[in-house]
């Protein structure tokens, strides 16, 4: 057990200053305003600047385009860039795909793509969910059919966030509908510039832009296949499982938290900060401040407690807790501030409430990202509590017919 402050040595302090200077120079008010407007989760200038620093893959050695950072520096970089509000969605999906490319791409493809990823000129998005499939990724119907040295892909994927700014989609396809549900799948790194790829924007009420991507007779070379034919589930799960186990018990130095939903807590922190400022600086007509009211303190206290729980609840349990804390906490803070909380960030009188208004909208997406909270509750029931798996007709076999 150890919760002490990490003592930074002189070089780490210098690194901290370097990151602060980077953030001040690149994550400008203009960048933040653009992100609020577009919700794209990406800014090309910032991304290329990160690449120049070697900070897209910061732990990689310099000769691979990284910066050779140790885990403490990587964590510092992550903390400060996130705190600055820097758009990180495409950065995150790209890093997730890197692991699969490193492990499964044929050497020529890896040698071509990985240096460009590190430099920032190649970005990757996730082609997992289908319009009628939801979180059940293994039910994918998008077809890939072999034709000589090529594959022909037909189908559609939804929530391919960042596709409009990416060069590659990490795509899960059905290559053998006769095999069991999880066995007939193959992964590809599809160049998004290919003929037959059509990207259509979708907006969420959380302010984000995501996409539906149509694949119509898209022909790609077999070199873009990742891993074996019909071995797609292993290729997809590998990086995910690695991600889920990262920093859990057994790791010598764990910094930050172990909650898989730790980043969902950030908007709630900002909202709670706004609410605390509001209750302490607002004066009611009778001269009292909301902070003098014990019912106000009680409500703030509950939000703060659930926020803490979201930060410290470990692993997949933390993913559910953090999302629930944000969803319920943001709604409670809205009520607490009253009608002024409804005002948009730029409007007059909305000085304190913008972060709360945003958190309330943004929160709803976190209950779905990376698999809904229900998917995770099922994982917890089965794998943490050892409860029997539900017997549904489509849990192991494909039950629907398609071309």
């Amino acid at each position, binding site marked *: *057990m*150890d*919760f*002490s*402050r*990490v003592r930074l040595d002189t070089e780490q302090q210098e690194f901290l200053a370097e990151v602060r200077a980077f953030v001040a120079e690149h994550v400008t008010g203009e960048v933040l305003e653009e992100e609020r407007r577009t919700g794209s989760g990406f800014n090309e200038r910032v991304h290329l600047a990160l690449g120049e620093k070697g900070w897209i893959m910061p732990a990689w050695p310099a000769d691979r385009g990284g910066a050779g950072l140790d885990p*403490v520096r990587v*964590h*510092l970089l992550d*903390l400060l860039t996130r*705190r600055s509000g820097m758009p990180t969605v495409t950065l995150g999906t790209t890093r997730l795909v890197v692991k699969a490319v490193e492990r499964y791409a044929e050497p020529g493809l890896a040698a071509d793509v990985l240096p460009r990823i590190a430099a920032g000129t190649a970005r990757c998005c996730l082609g997992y969910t289908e319009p009628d499939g939801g979180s059940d990724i293994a039910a994918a119907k998008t077809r890939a059919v072999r034709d000589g040295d090529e594959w022909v892909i037909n189908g559609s994927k939804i929530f391919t966030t960042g596709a409009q700014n990416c060069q590659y989609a990490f795509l899960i396809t059905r290559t053998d509908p006769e095999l069991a549900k999880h066995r007939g799948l193959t992964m590809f790194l599809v160049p998004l510039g290919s003929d037959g790829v059509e990207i259509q924007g979708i907006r969420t009420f959380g302010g984000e832009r995501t996409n539906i991507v149509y694949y119509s007779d898209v022909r790609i070379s077999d070199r873009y296949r990742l891993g074996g034919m019909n071995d797609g589930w292993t290729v997809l799960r590998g990086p995910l499982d690695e991600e889920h186990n990262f920093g859990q*018990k*057994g790791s010598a*130095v*764990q*910094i*930050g938290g*172990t909650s898989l939903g730790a980043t969902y807590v950030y908007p709630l922190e900002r909202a*709670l900060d706004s609410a*605390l*400022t509001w*209750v*302490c*600086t607002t004066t009611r007509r009778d001269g009292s401040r909301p*902070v003098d009211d*014990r019912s106000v*303190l*009680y*409500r*703030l*206290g*509950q939000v*703060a*407690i*659930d926020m*803490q*729980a*979201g*930060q*410290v*609840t*470990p*692993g997949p*349990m*933390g993913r*559910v*807790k953090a999302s629930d804390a944000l969803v319920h906490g943001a709604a409670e803070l809205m009520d607490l501030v009253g009608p002024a909380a409804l005002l948009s960030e730029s409007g007059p009188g909305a000085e304190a409430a913008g972060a709360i208004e945003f958190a309330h909208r943004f929160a709803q997406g976190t209950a779905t990202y990376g698999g809904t909270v*229900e998917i995770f*509750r*099922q994982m*917890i*029931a*089965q794998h*943490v*509590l*050892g*409860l*029997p798996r*539900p*017997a549904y007709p489509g849990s192991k076999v494909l039950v629907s017919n398609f071309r």
Partner: protein
Amino acid sequence: MDEFELRYADYSLSSDQEAVRDAFNEFFRNECPSERVRAAEPLGHDEKLWRQLADMGAASMGLPERAGGDGAALVDLMLVAEEAGAALAPVPFVEHVAASRALADAAAGRAPDGWLADAASGRRILALAMEPAGTGLAGTGARQLVPGGAVARGVLALDGDALVLVEADEPPSPVANQGSTPLAWWNLADGRRQRLAEGPSAEALYRRARAEWKLLTAAALTGLTERALGIAVEFAKTRETMGVPIGSLQGVSFPLADVAIGVSGARNMIRRAGWMLEHEPAEARPLVPAAFAYAARVATHGTTTAAHMQGGLGFTIEADASLYFLRAKGWSLLGGDPAEDVIAVADALAAGYR
């Protein structure tokens, strides 16, 4: 606490701590099956079990070496409390440890006759008055319901600006209660009284003892909830409906998953709070009440879910789940309305904005 501050988040136990946890886990599993919990009702005290526990060093381990103890850290004592809670052990471990640590700190200058040695051996049980004397409900005067008070020979209390030890030759009569814990009314103005400390140091000692009581109780509640969850999970694996185990139904498994989420979070919260109270008390101000309030909420929700998971069976007194349900409230209310802890969290956070 600034959550962007760079801190280690290492919740793991050292091999020594694992040994402590395992030893007490084994002890309670062997010595305290649910029959023994039932046999100790309604008082909620098993003197033989208490003696056995004290013989293992549980009463002395948290005292400083000069007071005959092992100088164990609060987080180590919380591991013992968690195991005691899981077994619903009818022993006043939490009360005695919280009060005797304060007594040892207060008595660094003036040692009350024989009390430290008796506290270390567990021969005389100590308890803690959970509110300053005379601040309770109107009409109660100096009387206060004291957790563990029905088996204690001494109660530590804050009276005005003094920390006092109130002694009795025999504990007052027990008062029957929902959680079958040894509660009793103590008249803090009566009996032999020794002043242990005055002024700010008295208040600091008292606050610290209360905080430790809360964290030890939170640890016991966390152990209690996890064991209740285990009972419900075993039932859900074997009980069938419409040809499938009920645990395969998401209407059953999801509520149980929510309890698992609560328990794992509460455990990390109390450990972080306990570590912080020991190492950086100023930072612990919002953490201790948060950990207690969360553990109390998780216990109420978790034991409600666990009992209900067995349907009508879980509602019967034969079901062990009922023992857990009754103690979840029975323990978490002893220190007052947990809403006061929720308010204390916000109060501590708002201090940085006023």
